[in-house]
């Protein structure tokens, strides 16, 4: 009895999870595996269109012979690269019309013309003609003839489905793509973005954890950059930072902080004279990191605040009795309480910042030294139109990601063992 019950339970469970699992599998897992497949192929953006046999139908009257009509089908292969095999053609005729002198590739069966055109090479073109004649002497209806569209079918190789593989893409990724520059930019961006957002998260959480007038309002405001749409925020920042008509540069010049406008998003290096040493700062990258911190510190803030509010008040009271000052309280009580949250946040944000695409894309488009791996995926795939290369870069990202995740879950597991 219980056996059947558990069977029913199992079956119900599978029915309940199946739709979700199917969707996630086809939209998330399948593409990840498909990336592997595509990355070993030489595929351009234009190759992914499936070749189609096409026909344009033109109906013409014949001058000397009003009983007859000429139909021209302009046939072509839509692809410039691939051939189409076994092209089959089908067109319907109005009831009172019969073809004469039909091409030998075609035959008529109950008012329909069937043709077999065989194989079409890439770029194939043909003007195919049929003469039509009224079978009952009535006037031929040109319009009716025109409105009926012919149907064509054919088999073609899908470039994605054949089994020609190559290592070319990976060779290009590692040796012709400034790979180490890409990697180091990505790491700079990820590391400093993550650290910055956590530091500001701690500061703001510490602020909001105290009582002051307008505290709930402050909490909402702090989350604005995180909940706002990235497109709107990125363009606002772009206008704000514009070297000529941007508010920031004009303010700084107005208050005599700087003499010349700074092209914060368009300049790769800024040389700063620091006690006689020339320091080269990656300006655009720094700006993009600041935007990143501005947008994502609210998340760290939210996590850390939740943790801070769970710290028992007695701890602070006891410390006060022992004569600890604010700094000692922060170092000895607050910090140990939030280290666990911070380490989780660090891993999560690290992984997500590593994959961040939109922010840099909208701010600089990857120019002036801000090209990260995700930007490169887009560039390779859609700007240079090399789908295979784009996939290969994606694979590199996934591989690095898997390493991070492995480390992450190792650490989490270790922490769970300790507790």
């Amino acid at each position, binding site marked *: 009895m219980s056996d059947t019950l558990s069977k029913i339970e199992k079956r119900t469970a599978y029915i309940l999870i199946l739709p979700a699992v199917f*969707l996630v599998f086809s939209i998330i897992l399948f*593409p990840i595996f498909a990336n592997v497949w595509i990355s070993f192929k030489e595929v351009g953006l234009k190759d992914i269109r499936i070749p189609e046999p096409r026909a344009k139908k033109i109906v013409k009257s014949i001058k000397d012979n009003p009983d007859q009509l000429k139909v021209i089908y302009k046939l072509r292969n839509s692809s410039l690269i691939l051939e189409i095999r076994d092209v089959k053609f089908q067109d319907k005729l109005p009831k009172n019309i019969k073809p004469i002198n039909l091409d030998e590739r075609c035959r008529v069966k109950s008012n329909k013309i069937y043709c077999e055109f065989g194989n079409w090479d890439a770029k194939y073109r043909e003007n195919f003609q049929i003469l039509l004649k009224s079978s009952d002497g009535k006037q031929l209806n040109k319009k009716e003839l025109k409105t009926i569209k012919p149907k064509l079918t054919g088999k073609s190789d899908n470039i994605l489905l054949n089994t020609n593989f190559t290592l070319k893409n990976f060779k290009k990724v590692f040796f012709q793509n400034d790979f180490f520059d890409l990697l180091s930019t990505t790491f700079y961006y990820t590391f400093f973005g993550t650290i910055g957002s956590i530091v500001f998260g701690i500061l703001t959480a510490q602020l909001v954890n105290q009582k002051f007038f307008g505290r709930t309002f402050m909490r909402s405001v702090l989350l604005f950059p995180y909940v706002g749409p990235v497109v*709107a925020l990125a363009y606002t920042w772009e206008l704000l930072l514009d070297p000529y008509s941007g508010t920031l540069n004009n303010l700084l010049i107005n208050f005599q902080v700087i003499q010349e406008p700074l092209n914060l998003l368009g300049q790769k290096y800024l040389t700063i004279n620091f006690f006689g040493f020339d320091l080269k700062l990656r300006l655009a990258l720094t700006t993009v990191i600041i935007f990143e911190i501005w947008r994502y510190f609210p998340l760290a803030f939210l996590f850390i605040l939740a943790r801070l509010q769970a710290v028992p008040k007695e701890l602070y009271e006891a410390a006060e009795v022992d004569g600890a000052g604010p700094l000692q309280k922060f170092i000895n009580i607050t910090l140990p309480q939030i280290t666990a949250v911070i380490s989780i946040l660090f891993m999560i944000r690290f992984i997500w910042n590593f994959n961040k695409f939109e922010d840099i894309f*909208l701010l600089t488009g990857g120019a002036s030294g801000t090209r990260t791996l995700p930007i490169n995926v887009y560039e390779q795939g859609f700007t240079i139109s090399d789908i295979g290369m784009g996939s290969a870069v994606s694979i590199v990202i996934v591989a690095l990601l898997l390493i991070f995740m492995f480390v992450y879950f190792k650490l989490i597991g270790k922490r769970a063992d300790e507790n």
Partner: protein
Amino acid sequence: MKTKSLIYYALISSIFLFSLVSIWKILVTLQGIELKNFNFAIIIALGIAISLLNTLIGDKLNYIIKSTFFALIFTFIDGYIVQLMPVWYNIGIFGILIFFSLKINKYNQKYLATEHSSQIVVFDFLTLFGIVLFSFVILFPFYMMLITSFKTQAALLINPLDFSINFNQDFKELFKSYFVIFDTYKFGRYILISTFVSVGTVIVTLVFAIPAAYAVARLNFFGKNFLSTSILIIYMFPAIVLVIPLYTVFSQLGLRNSVGGLLIVYTATTLPVAIYMLQGYFRSIPKELEEAAIMDKLNWFGIIIKIILPLSIPAISSVALYVFMIAWNEFLFSLMFLDNPNSFTLSRAIQYLSGDAETPRQYLMAGSVVVTIPVLLIFVYFEKYLVSGLTAGSVKG
């Protein structure tokens, strides 16, 4: 009284005062008033003087009289002697000084003599400083977005620092950018598409996620543990690695440029976190209720509809709002999949607008305001639900 505390107090409070006054000066400059200098030395000197005087006078004077006195002196020096400023600027400075004097009122000699007083003073002012600074840095871009959308191209080019709005002009002139984006650039249509996609994503996600979450939370089946751990791992995979295969497959299936295709992708990407959040909540519902329902011969469909759903309205609202926000703000997939202006979402439409270098920036900002306002309103109104959604779903972003 400890000298160290006094020095710390005087320095940090005057720096705080300087930052308040400077932010006010920036805001005033943006109203078209010419101001070329923060007068760092003068303001800091005044601040130190006021702080020290405050401690010296202590409780000998009523605090209201004391504050008014300080405020008047500062306003007089800053607004009449150093530079001649309009009355409304001085009223603002006066207000800032009243606020500042009231804040420093409690730091009398007795207070500064207590243990750790130097540290406490620094922490107190850093807190105030942080609140002011963070509010300013966060709100300023939003303020700029809003103001720019009400300006004209010519006004913006003549003086980029002039943020003043002429409210005397015709209503149609003031909102011109908004009329243009709705008339010329069809933003009404994009709002409809964005709303349709976002609401659609919420509904489809919930329809898929609720049964799955229920199964993970309550039923025993082979592969359950595997499923619940893989949900989180799958969630970690970024959109950028899905883009190329989805693009090729969607192109071949003719799903590109269709709102339906977008809806499928959004649903799939938000499903893992929705399931994760919901199953956590479902576990907290007492099992006895369902056992009673099984006695009443309800099937799983009945259990979900009649018991689980009514009890988990808060969790479902959190998930719904979170998913709505993700779908409304989403940009990457709409960039990849939509290239026909007839099926643009709001985000994609704004990006498309900006692609044309000729587009005046006030139109761009008006569009940005249109896409930002709904999320911010929803966020402020439903903050409680959204915050719990954000915390649970925050691995994403």
